[in-house]
C-alpha cells in the first residue's frame, strides 16, 4: 500500500505537470482496503478493480509498469493506447479491464465464475470493488442478485467513502447501513473500518475465504474517506473539515505504519527503507514508460474492432 500511495503521488505530480494523458484518479485513503483484496487473491482468481484500487492491483500482481505505461501513453502498456488509466487490465491474468459504467463489472465476474464452475474448475474467487455510489445502479443490483441465485464465489467490496463524486450518501441511499442489503439478497455481509489495515485484512480475507469455501456471495462494506478529489481535477471542497477530522478521515497509511511500529513488525528505519525502495521502483517505471513510443495511428490493427476480421476479409467493408 505504501507503493500505491507513492505511485499515486507520483501520478498526481505528473498530472500537475501536464505529463498525463487524460484524467488521474487516486486511491488515497483507500489503500488499506484495496490491498486487503489483492493479498488474498491467488493466481486464477478474478479481480474487477475500482478506479481507486492501485494498491489492490499491485498486490494482485499487476506489473508496476502497467500503470505507468497506461498513464503516460506508452504503446507497450496493456491497453496499447486504446484505453487509458483506470480502465487498464489483463483479463487473461484475472485483472479485468473495467468499463466506466459503474456496477457493470460485477455480472462479468459472475460470468467468469459461472464458466469456471461449468468447466469444473474449483476454488476460484472473484472480487468486484465499487464505491457506495455504484450501489444505486441497476447493474449492481441485478448482478448481486444473480450471484446469490447462482451461489457464485463472488465478493463485492464496497468502499463507502461518503461521497460519489460530490454527492453525499444522504442523496445516494436512505438505509442505515448498506450492509442491510446483504440480507435482502440472501448473501453474507460484513462491515469494516476501512482506515484500519488489520481489520481490513481480516474482514476481506474472511469474506474471500468464505467464498472460496463455497459459502456463496459475500458483501463487504467499508467506511472510510477518500483523502483527495474525485479525480485530480477536483479539489473536493464539498468534504467538510469535520468529516476529515472524524475517524473515517484517518489516513490508513499512517494508521498502518503506526500499527506496524506498535506490533514491532518493523522499525522506523525499515519503513523508511521500504519507502525509498518504493520510490525507486516508481521512478524506474516512469522513466521506462516515458522513453517508450506512443501508438502509431497508421498501424492498421488499431482500426478493426472484430476478432474474426479474417472471416470478413474476402469482401471489403465499405466505410
Amino acid at each position, binding site marked *: 500500500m505504501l507503493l500505491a500511495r507513492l505511485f499515486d503521488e507520483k501520478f498526481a505530480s505528473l498530472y500537475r505537470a501536464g505529463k498525463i494523458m487524460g484524467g488521474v484518479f487516486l486511491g488515497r485513503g483507500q489503500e488499506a482496503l484495496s490491498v486487503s483484496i489483492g493479498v488474498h487473491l491467488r493466481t486464477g482468481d478474478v479481480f474487477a478493480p475500482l478506479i481507486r484500487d492501485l494498491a489492490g492491483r499491485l498486490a494482485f500482481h499487476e506489473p508496476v509498469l502497467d500503470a505507468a505505461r497506461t498513464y503516460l501513453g506508452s504503446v507497450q502498456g496493456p491497453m496499447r493506447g486504446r484505453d487509458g488509466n483506470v480502465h487498464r487490465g489483463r483479463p487473461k491474468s484475472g485483472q479485468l479491464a473495467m468499463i466506466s459504467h459503474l456496477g457493470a463489472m460485477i*455480472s462479468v465476474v459472475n460470468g467468469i465464475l459461472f464458466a469456471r464452475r461449468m468447466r469444473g474448475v474449483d476454488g476460484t474467487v472473484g472480487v468486484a470493488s465499487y464505491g457506495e455510489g455504484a450501489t444505486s445502479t441497476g447493474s449492481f443490483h*441485478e448482478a448481486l*442478485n444473480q450471484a446469490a441465485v447462482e451461489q457464485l464465489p463472488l465478493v463485492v467490496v464496497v468502499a463507502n467513502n461518503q461521497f460519489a463524486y460530490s454527492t453525499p450518501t444522504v442523496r445516494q441511499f436512505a438505509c442505515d447501513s448498506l450492509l442491510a442489503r446483504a440480507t435482502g439478497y440472501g448473501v453474507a455481509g460484513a462491515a469494516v473500518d476501512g482506515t484500519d489495515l488489520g481489520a481490513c485484512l481480516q474482514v476481506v480475507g474472511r469474506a474471500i475465504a468464505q467464498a472460496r469455501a463455497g459459502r456463496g456471495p459475500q458483501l463487504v462494506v467499508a467506511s472510510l474517506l477518500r483523502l483527495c478529489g474525485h479525480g485530480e481535477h477536483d479539489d473536493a471542497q464539498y468534504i467538510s473539515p469535520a468529516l476529515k477530522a472524524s475517524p473515517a478521515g484517518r489516513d490508513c497509511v499512517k494508521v498502518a505504519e503506526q500499527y506496524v511500529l506498535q506490533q514491532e513488525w518493523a522499525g522506523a528505519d525499515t519503513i523508511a527503507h521500504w519507502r525509498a525502495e518504493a520510490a525507486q521502483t516508481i521512478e524506474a517505471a516512469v522513466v521506462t514508460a516515458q522513453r517508450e513510443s506512443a501508438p502509431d495511428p497508421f498501424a492498421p490493427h488499431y482500426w478493426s474492432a472484430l476478432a474474426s476480421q479474417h472471416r470478413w476479409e474476402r469482401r471489403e467493408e465499405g466505410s
Partner: protein
Amino acid sequence: MSITYLEAIRAAQARALAEDPRVFIYGQDVGAFGGAFKATKGLAQEFPGRVVDAPISEDAMAGLAIGAALDGLRPILEMQFADFSTLAFNQIVNQAATLFWRTNVPCPLTLRLPCGGTAGSGPFHSQMLETIYAHYPGLVVLTPATVEDAYSMLLEAVAIDDPVIFCEHKFLYYHLKAEALPTEALPANEARIARTGRDLTIVTYSAMVHEALAAAEELRGEGWEVEVVDLRSVKPLDTDTVMASVARTGRLLCVGEAFPWGGVTAEVVARVVSEGFDLLDAPPMRLNAKDTPVPYHPNLWSAHRPTARTVAMAARKVLHS
C-alpha cells in the same frame, strides 16, 4: 419431413450444444419450460446444466454471458423479446463490443433477439433492433430470412469469435417452412440473390425478403423482372453483391422493417451511391416502416410496416423513373 424457422433455431442450438462443450444457453424461461417461443424446447433435459434459467435481469444476463465468453465458453443468450435487450444495451455495446479491441481477448457470445412484428404484439414486442446494434463497432449483426439461414447462420454465429447479434424474426417462426435442414451454407457475411431479375434490384433482409419476393412475383405479371438481394448479414454488409446486382439492373429499392431514420436502408443506399453512382439509371429509393412506434391493432400494424403491396408500389415508382 418439414421444418419451421423456429425449429431450425432449436435444431441449431441442439447441434451446437452437442458438438461443442463450451456452448451453453442462458435466458429467461429457457430451461425446463423451453423458452417463451419454445426455441429451446427439450434442450435442458437433453443437456443437463447447460440450459440455464435467468432472473429478469437483462443487464446482468448479458454481463454473465460476456464473462463466460471471456473465460472461453460460447454462451447463447436468449432475450425473451428483442425489445427487452434495451436493458442490456450498455453491456452489449460498451462491454461486449469493445472488449476485443480494448484487451485483445475475444468475446464470442451469441445474442438471440426475437425481433419484428406480428399482428397484435404492439410497441414493445415488435421492434427491429438491428440498426442500433449495427451502429456500434465490434458487433456482428445477422438477420436470417430463411429456415436454412436460421439454422446455418446460428451455427456460424456460435463459431464466430465476436459478439453476434442474431436477429430472428418472429413473424417467420411458424409460417416459414423448409423440407430439410441445410447441409451446406453461404458464409454468414455474404448476401444472397434470392431471385434474379434485370430491371430493378430490391435489397432487403429478414422478413421483408418474403414481402419483396411476393412483390417481385406480382410485378412479373406486369412484365418486370425484379432481382431480390437478401443481405443476410447487415454488419458486415456485403456491398459487393449489392453493387454487382445494381450494376446489372441499374435501379435500386431498399426495403426494411425498421424505423425510417438511419438504419440498413440508409446505409445501403449511401454506400451504393458513393461507390457506384454511375451504375444507377434512376434515383434509388427506400421503403421503411413508419416513424411511429409499432401499432398494436392489426389494421394499423399492417399499414406501419412495408408489405408486398407497398413494396410493389415503391418498385413501380423506381421502375418508371
